């Protein structure tokens, strides 16, 4: 039996060190990579036991502290992320669990892991974001990122950085689950911390608007639907007042929404309507917006006549439609010279 014990490091520090060692040895072009992968898997499992306990043992706070400190000191998380795609399929999920465990750990009001990520190794965050688009590890990176951005400082770090705009590309990936997972992250980044996002949207209106409108006009049906949905959510958020004032005065946006209303897809028409109604409901409309509305009055009426919502069983949207319809009827007729 003794040979078994020899291979199993016992203290938390030993586990971390052995893991770091074995990760660096994995070389996928080499035939023996399987052994190192299995070792890593084993050490990751051991870490999980230290953090969460198992059937026999309860987690020990002092052991957890030792483990965490060793992880920060040796930049273990950094090595795990840089080598994520070399790990076993199931070990990758353990990495994600390890992250979320460490993030939840608190000393007083501080999360040592967040401090570490922000102050010592912000590269890890950037690596994770770039990993989102990789089809083997994208979902793992996505879930770790979403765990991280529950902390406002990290959310703030990401939207302030250039890589944030990568997401508008990621969500258009041909790989469905990568695209939708990126979308979930983008959605969280823009909805979790209201005040932060409000400031962000105000100071980055032009760039954001350009990007989201491009998504709405994508040829990919799912991208279209999800991005309109996200936009609806943003304009419905009260703290985003500044953003929506500008948004609903912008004729480009009205044009994009009108294109949605004229889409063949019923679902997109409905999503579009949920934004369009705000253009109509806005008390002080800019002259340019008014001009377009008036010019298209008969088109809108024709659209609303055919816009059947009876199958939805949703009285709110039917009321909204009636309201919009009435408002449009009140518009002045187009002046013909």
């Amino acid at each position, binding site marked *: 039996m003794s040979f078994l014990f020899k291979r199993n490091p016992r203290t938390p520090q030993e586990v971390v060190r052995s893991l770091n060692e074995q990760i660096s040895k994995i070389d996928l072009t080499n035939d023996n990579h399987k052994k190192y992968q299995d070792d890593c898997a084993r050490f990751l499992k051991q870490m999980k036991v230290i953090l969460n306990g198992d059937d026999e043992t309860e987690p020990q706070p002092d052991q957890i502290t030792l483990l965490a400190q060793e992880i920060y000191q040796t930049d273990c998380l950094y090595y795990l992320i840089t080598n994520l795609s070399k790990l076993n399929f199931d070990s990758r999920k353990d990495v994600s669990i390890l992250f979320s465990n460490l993030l939840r750990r608190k000393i007083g009001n501080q999360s040592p892991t967040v401090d570490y990520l922000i102050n010592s190794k912000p590269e890890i965050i950037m690596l994770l974001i770039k990993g989102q688009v990789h089809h083997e590890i994208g979902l793992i990176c996505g879930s770790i990122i979403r765990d991280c951005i529950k902390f406002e400082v990290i959310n703030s770090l990401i939207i302030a950085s250039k890589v944030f705009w990568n997401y508008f590309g990621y969500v258009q990936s041909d790989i*469905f689950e990568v695209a*939708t997972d990126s979308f979930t992250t983008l959605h969280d980044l823009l909805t979790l911390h209201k005040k932060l996002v409000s400031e962000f949207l105000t100071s980055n209106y032009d760039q954001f608007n*350009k990007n989201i409108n491009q998504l709405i006009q994508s040829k990919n*049906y799912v991208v279209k*639907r999800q991005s309109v949905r996200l936009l609806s959510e943003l304009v419905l958020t009260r703290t985003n007042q500044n953003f929506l004032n500008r948004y609903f005065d912008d004729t480009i946006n009205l*044009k994009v929404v009108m294109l949605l209303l004229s889409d063949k897809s019923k679902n997109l028409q409905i999503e579009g309507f949920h934004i369009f109604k705000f253009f109509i409901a806005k008390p002080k409309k800019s002259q340019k917006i008014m001009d377009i509305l008036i010019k298209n009055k008969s088109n809108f009426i024709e659209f609303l006549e*055919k816009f*059947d919502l009876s199958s939805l069983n949703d009285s709110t949207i039917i009321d909204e439609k009636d309201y919009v319809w009435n408002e449009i009827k009140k518009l002045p007729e187009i002046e013909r010279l």
Partner: protein
Amino acid sequence: MSTRVFSGEELTVCEQVGKGGFGVVYRGLIKTTNEEVAIKQIDLENDQTDLYEINKEIQIISECRLPQITRFMGCFVKNYKLWVIMEFVNGGSLFELLFPGPVQDEKIISIIAKEILIALEYLHNQGKIHRDLKSQNILLSSSGEVKLTDFGVSTQLSSNFSRRNTTVGTPYWMAPEVILNNNGGHNSKADMWSLGCCLYELFQGKPPLQNQYPPMKALRYISRCIKDEDFAQLIDLDSLQISDNFRDFLSKCFIIDPKERFSASKLLKHKFITKNTTSSVEQQKLVKGLITRKHLWDQENHVLKTQKFYLPTEMVENQQKWATEESEENAETIKFDISTISYSNSSDYPSPKSSTHSSSVSPPSTLDTEVETTRQTTDFSKKKANYQTLTENNSKQKNLVKTVQPELNRILNKVFHKLETRNNLSTEQYDLLVTLNQTIVELFTFSNYDPKSNSSNKILVCQYVKYFLKELTKTENVDNSRLMLQKMIIPSDMKNFSDINETIKLKKKTNDPLDEIESSLFETWINEMKSN
């Protein structure tokens, strides 16, 4: 190892192999490697399932990699459809493999049980629940591997339920807590119950209670079980001709309290699983035996599968289909006039003209749909007028429909289900039956309501059926051809034709109490449980 399919161009789509709650499944080939794959197509525009829900499900299946689980190979959007590419398992499902009869050899049952347990343990360790474990979702490969499929993508329980009421579906595999709490309060232990049902099914040919009760009734009985003995008695576990190990294994799956019910890891250590020490080669051979058995049975019974082939639908075709299908309002474009909008920062944008085109179809077809549109709108206004008179007169009929229709649906469902389980329906046959059922429902309940003649149309239909039966069942002076007709149409166990009239009466009598139970099924159960 990790073959990945990125787009539809990489695939040759072959015949249709199935139809799930979520869409159609085709067999396909990867062009470069000739590897077989299963292609599931989910219609995102028409499916009621929420997009986020589908996303979540796809993420779940993409996170599983185990020999005992059908492998996820890719997923992408094509027009309005989501294509999900999965490993193709060519030996058929346990459900189909049971057509020739139950599996008597407990060794085979134990082998299959072990493989499913490994899959469930893997899922449960990751906090995932299959939710819809049944014989249809357990597949065998021609080399004798057992694979679990269709978890996650099968829609959530609540939506399944409504679907079950309207079409077929059989909830015989559901654990009591799942039936009682349809809002997902259940956990991984629900799968263990279903596993028990599957193994019972292997031995008996049918899941527990299916031979005795219609689905709704079975659900009610299962949900009423309070003690473990209750269910054991209900399915008569003690008198099953099985080994003690197997019996004990089943009883551990059928523990009513989910907390007490054994987990997958625990059952993997059960004697019924561990006592089996046959070599893996031998095991695969035994499992393969089921497939051979089915092939022979197919030959004897001349089962020929009619095959449906995939025809790629162009976007345009699709849209025309919608325009006609949802007849009235849908799918016409309004061409908004955006030509005069000026752009302050337009350099980033395509000109308005071209962007109109990019999001609608090509110019000529837009014209076509416009012509179509005007024709349809005139049609539509006529329909609308008709419809109004209809609704006014409909309320009287509605009451009648309310009382009779659920029962009629129930009968039709039962018929449908019987045929489905016995015949392994092809899609065409399936569709045929659906149309037939619909026609019957329409004839009896919604038969064209004409205000002038009141409901005489419906009476006419009923009388027609009565006279038809009467004429058909006449015993005097029947010639040969009449006899043949009788043989074809009248059930053999109704030799005495007066029985028919009796049964018709009986059916009508049982109407009311059953309806009530069905409509308020959940509430009653929950109340029952609370009062206990």
